[in-house]
């Protein structure tokens, strides 16, 4: 079944966290296909740094849940080799920051081998990793490097913003025959949401309009979508009708859904956790400019992180990350509205 199309049957749901949705999905996929195995640092005995793999070693054993040494290039490469021979490895990299150590295996190999070897091999590999700042983990532990991977042909990059999407996109990623980067976010793990029971498989490459509106489109993904919805609802109370597009997939990118929304609203703001220059927002903005320029009533604006390595001190960290207040301010500017009364959150 497919969550994106037919939802006419009554589906029971439960309210669970993003973390629990990931955990239950990994469990379901380990049960579904014996070729699926998990590999990563601390995922077995310690159950993962963020407890995503809780209980899985105990129930599936060390051949299915492999505690890897601290050797990202080595174990991502090993997972890749196993994927080439029909296994379906799901790698956990503790945070996206550490994926830079494995980037040769991801970019030079996983992304290219099917094309470079003319279809002799497929790469059913999933690499899960959280990004994001806001936990005072400072510069090397708070990055949003998803654009590095979204830039690479041969990879798929998905970024769920809700527990339901975490389930449906992770299931889809594990069953996909191509390498999928599965972006999680530190600040989403404890977020709760309604999750349908039973098998749910999303279509990778489809964005979702998670709130409809007619005045302006906010495009975002992952944690950013949560903030975008918060701002949209807050502005709704002031009489503005904001549409929110949750990208869900950064590659393939659902340009049609983005353009259709902006065609309707005539205004667009991209809210992204990564740095402004050459970021996700740059690609979205270009997509809108190339696709629906004639429908725009104002330039597309981007709200992104300040271009510094994320500082440690709370005041500096908060100032560097894009906030709800920043987004609300830019939405008003795009709509030519007077600034809201300053609040303690505003900068």
């Amino acid at each position, binding site marked *: 079944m497919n969550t994106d199309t037919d939802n006419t049957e009554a589906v029971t749901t439960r309210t669970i966290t993003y973390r629990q949705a990931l955990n239950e999905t990994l469990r379901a996929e380990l049960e579904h296909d014996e070729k699926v*195995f998990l590999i990563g640092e601390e995922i077995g005995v310690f159950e993962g740094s963020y407890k995503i793999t809780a209980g899985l070693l105990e129930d599936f054993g060390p*051949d299915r849940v492999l505690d*890897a*040494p601290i*050797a990202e*290039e*080595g*174990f*991502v*490469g*090993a*997972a*890749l*080799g*196993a*994927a*080439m*021979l*029909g*296994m379906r490895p799901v790698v956990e990299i503790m945070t996206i920051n550490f994926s830079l150590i494995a980037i*040769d*295996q991801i970019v*030079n*190999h996983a992304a290219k*081998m*099917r*094309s*470079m*070897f*003319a*279809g*002799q*091999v*497929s790469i059913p590999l999933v690499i899960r990793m959280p990004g994001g700042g806001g936990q005072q983990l400072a510069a090397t532990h708070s990055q949003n490097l998803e654009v590095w991977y979204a830039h690479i*042909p*041969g990879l*798929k990059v998905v970024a769920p913003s809700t527990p339901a999407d975490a389930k449906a996109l992770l299931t889809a990623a594990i069953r*996909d*025959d*191509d390498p999928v980067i599965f972006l999680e976010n530190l600040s989403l793990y404890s977020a709760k949401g309604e999750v349908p029971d039973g098998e749910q498989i999303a279509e*990778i*490459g489809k964005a979702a309009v998670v709130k409809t509106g007619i005045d302006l489109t906010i495009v975002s993904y992952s944690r950013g979508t949560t903030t975008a919805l918060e701002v949209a609802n807050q502005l709704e109370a002031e009489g503005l009708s904001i549409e929110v597009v949750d990208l869900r997939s950064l590659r*393939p990118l659902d340009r049609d859904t983005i353009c259709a929304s902006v065609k309707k609203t005539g205004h667009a703001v991209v809210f992204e956790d990564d740095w402004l220059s050459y970021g996700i927002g740059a690609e979205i903005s270009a997509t809108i400019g190339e696709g629906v320029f004639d429908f725009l009533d104002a330039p597309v604006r981007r709200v992104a992180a300040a271009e510094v390595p994320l500082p440690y001190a709370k005041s500096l960290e908060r100032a560097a990350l894009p906030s709800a207040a920043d987004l609300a301010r830019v939405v008003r500017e795009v709509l030519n509205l007077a600034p809201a009364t300053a609040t303690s959150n505003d900068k």
Partner: protein
Amino acid sequence: MAELARDTLREMQLRMLRIRAFDERASKMVKRGHIPGTVHTSIGQEAQVVGATMALGAGDYMSGNHRSHGHPIGKGSPLGPLMAELVGKATGVCKGKGGSLHLADFAVGSLGESGIVGSSIPIANGAALSSKVLNNGKVALAFFGDGAANQGVLYESMNMAGVWDLPMIFLCENNQYALSTPAHTVTSGIISERAAGFGMPGIRVEEGQDVLAVYDAVSKAVARARAGDGPTLVEVMTYRYNEHSEGLRLGTDYRNAEERDAWLKKDPIMLFRHYLASHGFSDDELDGLQATALAEVDAAVAFSDASPYPDLSVAFDDLYTDKESAA
């Protein structure tokens, strides 16, 4: 070492001759512009390549590096699609999308080469991991040079292979120069002795121009891996005759004539011909092997010449398993 069947001995010499003839032709084709860019030849290293690849079973896996025409040939790949790949033809083993640096022939267990030095080692390790998990009895071998022996990922991979008892062979082709850098100037200690740090056997084949010596050492490592006793590091001492890559002009003689002459006197094909001649092979038969190899290379070039270049319509083929994702 157990007596090898006559057919096996014959096949060893034939495969070495194929590699020599293939790469000598490729070298000429680069110089004439018939092959674009450059290639890295295995000329001089044939014993090391064939001794290792023939010690593997047909279903076993291997990964290669930038100097890797010999590896699929040694494992039994037909020459036509390999040559067509070097020229960039649609009939190439990778349909013209890989080139000399990225040959792969999964039909013979060649999981592909990479021009990123050292990077294919963990991939072979993953193949060995799959063999262990699937319990299918297959082993994996990673070819890498003395240059790659200084990449960290080798030691990450040796550590994992050791701790997980993977059916894995780390095969260091020590031709003593990383491009122009002499191995001894950048390499601390003896490469094979590094195995001790990972609790696995490390073997150095000093007579790496002797195909039987290499075959013997690698066969023992394969048997150990297949028995479930874990990985082995095998370092084979060898020498490449040509420049690092064809057409490269460094303007410095980093390898002196004396050294080169000493190695030429131990030419692997000549050495093994002497061995075969003293073990019941006639001169006619041995000349015939040489003629066969040359004829196969001629046929491979003819196959490539007669093949079309890729049509532009295939540009996005095989990027993803589903075509829509490439949009």
